[in-house]
């Protein structure tokens, strides 16, 4: 099957509010798939359903041929689906380097490994990897700062580094460039392009059309919890339906 992720018929309601309605989404291996839509359209809910943070009311999330629904978040992570969070979910008390070493350890040690007598000082290999990941996102200079003290944009980049170091087969990016300056956004776009060359499949949720159109092979538009369109960037750009929902131009104008 060439689809790495196959979401079928996912529904999710919160106390009567339909957050997601019958979502059908197929992500092809090796592609970059963007999901766009106005705030509150259900994009983050969709991602949360994929990584086990939320359990959908119905439907399946097939990843590499396995249904992920009901699996523990850490198992989903080890299956190869990794999410980069929108509001930076980092370890604020730890240094940047430690923040990146943690996911690297997860990759190496699995869901649980009891190694209290191994010295961190001897983990030079992981450290190098982590430094490289930090360098990828341009944070290597601040490796010894506490993650809580850096700017929001930098936190996003740190998140990205934390996702990348696990080399997942599917990376879910939730607004990777929010809070970044234009200059940094462009750097991030370049980085994400580079990853694409490495063959990593990505799902990007993004508001920034510039980012979306520079990266995406395919775009799905989510509004009111429904996917209202899926297509190539050009198709989406010219869809009236999309304009109405997303850009807020109502039809009577």
């Amino acid at each position, binding site marked *: 099957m060439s689809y790495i992720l196959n979401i079928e018929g996912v529904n999710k309601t919160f106390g009567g*509010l339909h957050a997601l309605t019958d979502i059908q989404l197929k992500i092809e291996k090796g592609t970059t798939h963007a999901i766009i839509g*106005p*705030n*509150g*359209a259900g994009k983050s809910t969709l991602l949360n359903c994929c990584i086990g943070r939320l359990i959908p009311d119905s439907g399946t999330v097939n990843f590499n041929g396995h249904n992920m629904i009901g699996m523990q978040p850490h198992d989903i992570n080890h299956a190869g689906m990794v999410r980069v969070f929108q509001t930076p979910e980092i370890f*604020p008390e730890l240094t940047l380097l430690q923040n990146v070493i943690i996911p690297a350890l997860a990759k190496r040690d699995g869901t649980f490994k009891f190694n209290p007598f191994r010295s961190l000082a001897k983990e030079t290999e992981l450290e190098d990897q982590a430094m490289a990941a930090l360098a990828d996102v341009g944070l290597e200079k601040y490796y010894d700062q*506490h993650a*809580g*003290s*850096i*700017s*929001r*944009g930098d*936190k*996003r980049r740190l998140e990205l580094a934390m996702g990348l170091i696990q080399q997942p087969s599917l990376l879910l990016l939730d*607004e990777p460039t*929010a*809070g*970044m*300056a*234009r200059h940094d956004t462009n750097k991030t776009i370049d980085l994400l392009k580079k990853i694409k060359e490495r063959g990593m499949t990505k799902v990007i949720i993004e*508001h*920034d*059309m*510039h*980012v979306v159109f520079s990266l995406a092979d395919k775009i799905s538009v989510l509004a*009111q919890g429904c996917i209202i369109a899926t297509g190539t960037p050009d198709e989406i750009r010219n869809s009236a339906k999309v304009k*109405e*929902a997303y*850009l*807020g*131009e*109502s039809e009577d104008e």
Partner: protein
Amino acid sequence: MSDRLIDEIKVRDRVKPVLNQGSSPSFFSCWDMHSYYGESYIVQGVSFDIREGEVVALLGRNGAGKTSTLRSIARVDSPQVTHGEIWLDHKPLHKMAAHDAAMNGVALVPEDRRIIAGLTVEENLQLAQIAPPIGWTIERIYEHFPRLAERRNQMGTTLSGGEQQMLAVARALARDIKLLLLDEPYEGLAPVIVQEIANIVDSIKKYGITTIIVEQNAVAALRLADRALILDMGNIVFDGTAQEVLDNEELRHEYLAI
């Protein structure tokens, strides 16, 4: 820390006198405001003026610091404003706590509406009328928002998204406000409801309430606004009329990503 201080001084030197077209002294002015979330530097020296009765759209990409700017003006605990002055109608907001600022006429309608759990619709409105100065009477509010009147004894949090937004705005109107801060009023609402809220905001404009509106849906916001400010990385990068933004595709593309 000392590096940061030097930065601040530099920033201050750099600030040009902000444009002050029309009424002088300006009704609201925010001068070189810096704020932090913990150690995170979010608002990095924002300065702007607003005339009485003006509706200003504060735009920018996600994470540009729009919400933080509004929250800084409303003087909530976080982000913490470390430097700068905020004046509203000759009163120094920067010296006040949130409740003082509110008593001096600032009203923030927060992003997620923040309808208070455990209180009915009516109690939510009553809550707004405890501290002076009091604005619209509850009867008047119900006249304007008949839907709220119907649900007056329902728990506020059981309302639909649009109704909650209505309640949040109504709650602001229940106070005698000089400056309304609207944070993402359309977020997560169905188009029909967006329209309804837009009408409400339109009517607010008619009453001449000075308003700053932050909205993801830039086009919708610009339709309401007299003026637009664009924020990027905690700084004001554009200040002009709403039409200028709508006309300037490059600007929109660069800073609003549309």
